[in-house]
């Protein structure tokens, strides 16, 4: 599986899309330059909350989602369209392993520069919250890329014609659902990503607001995300073994 991951990594680094990654990661840092906490916020804690909301919307909620959409939705399409998948599927390696290795390589490849970009943005907005802030966001960003890449990979397998559009619709619906109180919000990945930030930063929020933002414990959030990722990767891996990727051309 390491060989496939290496191949995927070379593929990602060799693609023109790499410039899009650079753009996606430079943009939030530039937007951070325009950030200034509302004047009404006097305390340090309030300023931290404000920065956390701003950076959460910028990174786990937008940048991570868009990067995952860009790469997750084309996890196999690039090879299917380039007809190189035949080489991978005519070797003694299970199709689900090919998929899992590609998924791991893409997720890893996205996490590292996104964390780097976040570090720059965090410094620009005044380095609020110290190490706990960084840890909370590192976990949330890693989780966001891992879960969204997995979800968009599943979408790519089931909706091979328009994976990007379906993925974008999913992202919007998920964001809306994550603010519906009670059980509905807890069924979204965003809720747990927010919970991680809220718990690690130990945000002092009113109970009602905390429940809406994300009241799950850190352990529950991490486990829930891990379970969602495992389920999505397993589902995509299973679906790939059932799919035919060869076309009828030159039949």
């Amino acid at each position, binding site marked *: 599986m390491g*060989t*496939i991951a*290496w*191949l995927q990594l*070379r*593929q990602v680094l*060799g693609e023109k899309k790499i410039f899009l990654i650079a753009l996606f990661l430079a943009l939030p840092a530039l937007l951070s330059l325009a950030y200034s906490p509302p004047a009404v916020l006097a305390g340090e804690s309030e300023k931290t909350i404000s920065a956390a909301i701003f950076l959460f919307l910028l990174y786990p909620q937008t940048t991570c989602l868009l990067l995952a959409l860009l790469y997750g939705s084309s996890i196999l399409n690039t090879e299917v369209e*380039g*007809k*190189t998948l*035949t*080489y*991978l*599927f*005519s*070797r*003694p*390696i*299970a*199709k689900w392993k090919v998929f899992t290795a590609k998924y791991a390589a893409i997720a890893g490849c996205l996490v590292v520069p996104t964390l780097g970009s976040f570090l720059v943005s965090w410094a620009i907005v005044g380095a609020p919250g110290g190490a706990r802030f960084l840890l909370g966001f590192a976990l949330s960003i890693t989780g966001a890329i891992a879960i969204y890449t997995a979800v968009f990979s599943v979408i790519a397998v089931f909706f091979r014609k328009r994976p990007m559009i379906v993925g974008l619709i999913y992202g919007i619906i998920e964001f809306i659902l994550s603010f519906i109180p009670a059980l509905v919000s807890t069924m979204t990945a965003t809720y747990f990503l927010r919970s991680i930030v809220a718990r690690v930063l130990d945000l002092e929020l009113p109970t009602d607001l905390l429940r809406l933002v994300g009241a799950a414990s850190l352990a529950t959030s991490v486990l829930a995300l891990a379970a969602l990722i495992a389920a999505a990767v397993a589902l995509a891996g299973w679906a790939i*073994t059932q799919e*035919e*990727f*060869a076309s*009828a*051309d*030159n*039949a």
Partner: protein
Amino acid sequence: MNLIETRNLTKLYGAVIGVNDATLDVPKGVRGLLGPNGAGKSTFLKLVTGQLKPTEGRLTVLGERPWNNPELFRRVGFCPEQDAFYGFLTGFEFVKTLARLSGFDPAEAARRSEASLARVGATEYMHRKIGTYSRGMRQRTKVAQSLVHDPEFLILDEPLSGTDPIGRREMTDLIRSLGKEGRSILVSSHVLHEVQAVTEEFLLMYGGRVLASGNVHEIRGLMNEVPHRITIRCREGRALAHHLMRVLPIAGIEMNDGQGTFSVLTHDPGSFYAGLPAVVAEAGAKITEMVSQDDNLDAVFRYLVTRD
């Protein structure tokens, strides 16, 4: 054990038939898979290599079902038709990567890749990026990756496509030598003489159906309802044709005066050849060239295709 066995194998793409109710046993050895573009060859090979799942029927390759059976590819090597590559890799990296996926450690994969690329004559440029290769170089590299794990069954989809005359000759020699080593090979092509240069054993596909399989001469023998065609070049063509019609078992004669030849159609080529010398002597004719036109793959192919 047969190389390939199919029973009522059918593959549909929606309402389009890719392979239609094929039942055949393909013994081990070197075989050609012939048919025009769109005949179903690629679909058949995609089924054989597990890229497609049969819609109906049964298919085994070396006794195993190929669909979702990656372990089979320890024994099978596949060179696809499509000119697709990871252009950012060198030829050596490409072959080595696929060798690694076949389960070899890095050192063994590197050794095998070098040997495989040397075997197809690609050593000189193997450390250049594939993106800079000519079509012929890419074709050789593709064949090298299919050989790198030393498979007992090699499937080559249009391996001569895009090669120059020298490359074609070298590739033909390579396929022959691989066959002589005892390896089973299935070579697909839509160009008859390409396959004929490699083997006389073949499968013929058209319209999604396997029309015939076996040796070209055996197939020809089965076609006894269609006369055998023999073209004769002779200055005294009309006189000789007249004598032949009178004496030998002949179904018809076609005169090609412009070319100085005539074609004899017979259902009994054995008797025709046996009686020919006497008739030629009686007619006082001198034959300068005689070609048994039907005794080649082209004729078999044409006949079987037009019959259906």
